[in-house]
């Protein structure tokens, strides 16, 4: 019974992990940009949901479009204005750049909201399904459903729309995409914007699930890493697999190790995957050979 509860918890949180990882994955896959500020983008989305909830009484699920829209604008402008300038620079320059942004953004959040943790607790928070000793809060199910829906929508967008396919083409081979007429200079800000929007939406979901604080972004960035590496870069189905796997492994591991090691479990999984199969479940092997 405990195993069932843990597995269900793992799957539900796995959906959220997938959603968290998506924006990160497309930024990395398309633009070869590892966005260390991703977790803080998520926090921004969370705080947008928090503000709308505390000031306007808006249900956090309904805050998702707002969070996504705001973060899309932020991401688009950021890319257009600043990141575009260094897109061809080396690995650690872009890593350092996004870390610099992270520091800046965290500072902004700290000034606005202070480091105190906040929560978003809608009226229906405590209620859930009770069945045979297993408890599944409605909120968690809601978060899972929304997360999977967003994932599906992104997948449809990437595979069925013209812009989406242009983005995928750029992720496979930038030069080839340019040669068939894709305007890469426009694709990058769009991709960054979409990635930030996904982060914003995931942030609203995070606000429902966890207590939030400006400094928690880093943990989510790490989770996104693990999911992307597990599932394979540039693959939405891979992100789903990766997210669910991480969620389940994290929860089932509490059977054998104390819960406080949960955070460490993620890193161990990351290291094992990196060493054994850097391309992940469904990723493309050549991404593992990125020139510095």
């Amino acid at each position: 019974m405990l195993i069932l509860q843990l597995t269900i918890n793992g799957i539900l949180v796995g959906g959220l992990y997938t959603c968290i990882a998506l924006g990160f994955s497309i930024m990395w896959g398309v633009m070869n940009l590892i966005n260390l500020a991703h977790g803080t983008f998520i926090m921004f989305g969370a705080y947008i949901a928090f503000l709308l909830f505390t000031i306007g009484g808006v249900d956090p699920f309904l805050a998702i479009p707002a969070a996504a829209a705001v973060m899309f604008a932020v991401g688009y402008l950021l890319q257009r204005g600043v990141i575009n300038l260094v897109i061809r620079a080396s690995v650690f320059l872009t890593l350092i750049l996004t870390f610099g942004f992270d520091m800046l953004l965290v500072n902004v959040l700290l000034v606005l909201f202070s480091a105190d943790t906040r929560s978003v607790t809608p009226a229906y928070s405590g209620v859930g399904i009770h069945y045979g000793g297993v408890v599944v809060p409605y909120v968690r199910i809601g978060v899972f459903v929304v997360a999977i829906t967003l994932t599906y929508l992104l997948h449809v967008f990437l595979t069925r729309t013209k812009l989406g396919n242009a983005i995928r083409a750029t992720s496979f081979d930038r030069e080839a995409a340019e040669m068939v007429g894709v305007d890469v200079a426009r694709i990058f800000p769009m991709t960054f914007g979409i990635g930030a929007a996904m982060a914003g939406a995931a942030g609203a979901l995070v606000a429902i699930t966890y207590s939030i604080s400006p400094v928690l972004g880093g943990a989510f960035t790490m989770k996104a890493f693990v999911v992307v590496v597990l599932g394979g870069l540039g693959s939405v189905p891979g992100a789903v697999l990766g997210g669910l796997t991480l969620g389940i492994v994290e929860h089932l591991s509490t059977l054998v190790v104390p819960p406080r090691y949960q955070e460490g479990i993620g890193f161990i999984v990351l290291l094992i995957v990196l060493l054994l199969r850097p391309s992940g479940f469904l990723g493309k092997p050549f991404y593992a050979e990125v020139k510095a």
Partner: protein
Amino acid sequence: MTRLPIPEVVVAVAGVGLLLAPFMLGNYWIRVLTTMFMFAALASATNIMAGYTGYPAFGNVVFFGLGAYATGLAMTKLRAPFWLGVVLAAVVCCLYAVVIGFPVLRLRGHYFAIATLGMNEATRALVENVAFTGGGMGLSLPVQRGEVDALNRHFYFVMLGLVAAAVGATYCVTRTRLGYGCLAIRFDEDAAGSCGVPTTRFKVLAWTLSAVLTGMAGAAYANWVGYIEPRAVFDMNIAVKMFVMMLLGGAATVFGPLLGACLVELVGLMAWSQILNYHSAALGVIVIAVVIFVPGGLMSLRRGLSIRLLLDNVRASRL
């Protein structure tokens, strides 16, 4: 490959000045300089792996933490003297780098960077959750005997010695086969292999050297500060500072990291007092500006600074 960019006389005078400084300055400035030297040593160590060999060991701060804890544990549990603690720190870091190096160094670029990040986080989580190390509560080192001024001077010289060792090691590396091999690895690892460079061995060597220097800095830090906890010594902010200082000063140059450390620390000092709340933001803005306008670091400005140069840098990296 590397000539001293400034005349020997200036270096000699500066050297003497550095040696006399702690006897002439107040404790505040001695501490400022000590911190600067520590970071200069860290940035130099990072430079050996990331700058010269081209492997962005973003999580290299793990060795700082390992060094701090190795010394801390040696001095508390084994009642070892300080110098033995430092030696132990060096040994632990050396082993860690060699054992983990062989598998992790098969990765390149982003993947290597992430793996080192994961290493740091995993090691921190481990140290935090093991009672032996004091866990999340941290570890207090034995109190240093002696009066304040003498102690301050003592650590000043320790850190000065460290930065001299780090810069010296870098200089020696650039003059030897190891230096050429590492640069070859950085510019084209496969071509390097086909020229006869034993790539795996050199990468592990470079990383071990980097790790040992970083670890010794961690050991000195632990002793200086007297109390360490996982979040403080396995801190990504330190990791970023190391990288930023290296980049700002100039990666793959002998004196670049030293310059970068001095600059960042001095700016940080001024910022700290003026804009307390925006300390992180200020550092963030500096980072962004450096990456965009001066990716080659200050050493690349040796031939002159101009608006033209800054704009060229931007143009070179943009889409």
